[in-house]
């Protein structure tokens, strides 16, 4: 089965695929994957998303730490009545 699919890909089989079959992985509609030419849009989106996720993770962690410290101070002030 894998060998057959590999052969299909090498032949560059591109069927006149109706739009409804665009998301299937059927061997009759799959396009030949070209790993030699990068999908620059996909690469850019992936890197951008990663940067955004890391930035939001790190800022959220720092905000959490500050909020925890603030609430700890508030609790101590409440208990000792600002003595």
């Amino acid at each position, binding site marked *: 089965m894998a060998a057959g699919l590999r052969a299909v890909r090498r032949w560059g089989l591109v069927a006149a695929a109706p739009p409804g079959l665009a998301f299937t992985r059927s061997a009759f509609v799959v396009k030949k*994957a070209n790993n030699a030419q990068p999908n620059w849009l996909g690469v850019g989106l992936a890197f951008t998303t990663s940067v955004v996720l890391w930035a939001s993770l790190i800022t959220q962690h720092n905000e*959490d730490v500050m*909020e925890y410290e603030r609430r700890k101070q508030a609790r101590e002030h409440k208990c000792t009545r600002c003595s």
Partner: protein
Amino acid sequence: MAFLPDESRSLPPPPLLNKGSVWLGLVGWLSALADNAFNQRPVLRAGVHRQILFATVGCFIGYQLVKRTEYMHAKVDRELFEYMRHHPVDFHRAGT
């Protein structure tokens, strides 16, 4: 209940790299490597952007899940200690 209620912010936040975020980051990275393997690409050298993205998503989800886990555990502990406070008779040391 919300995923992370407001009172969960009164707990000390877990470190950025905790067991949940590291493990799920590893899972994400390994799934990117598996995707390379299944598509007959060089496993480690191909699709580095994909590996980084999957690992990042794993770390992110892991961190949020660990925060929620710590909140749920703290909530249960609080309820337990409240119960113990209200029923001291049941929790005397054995022998007294």
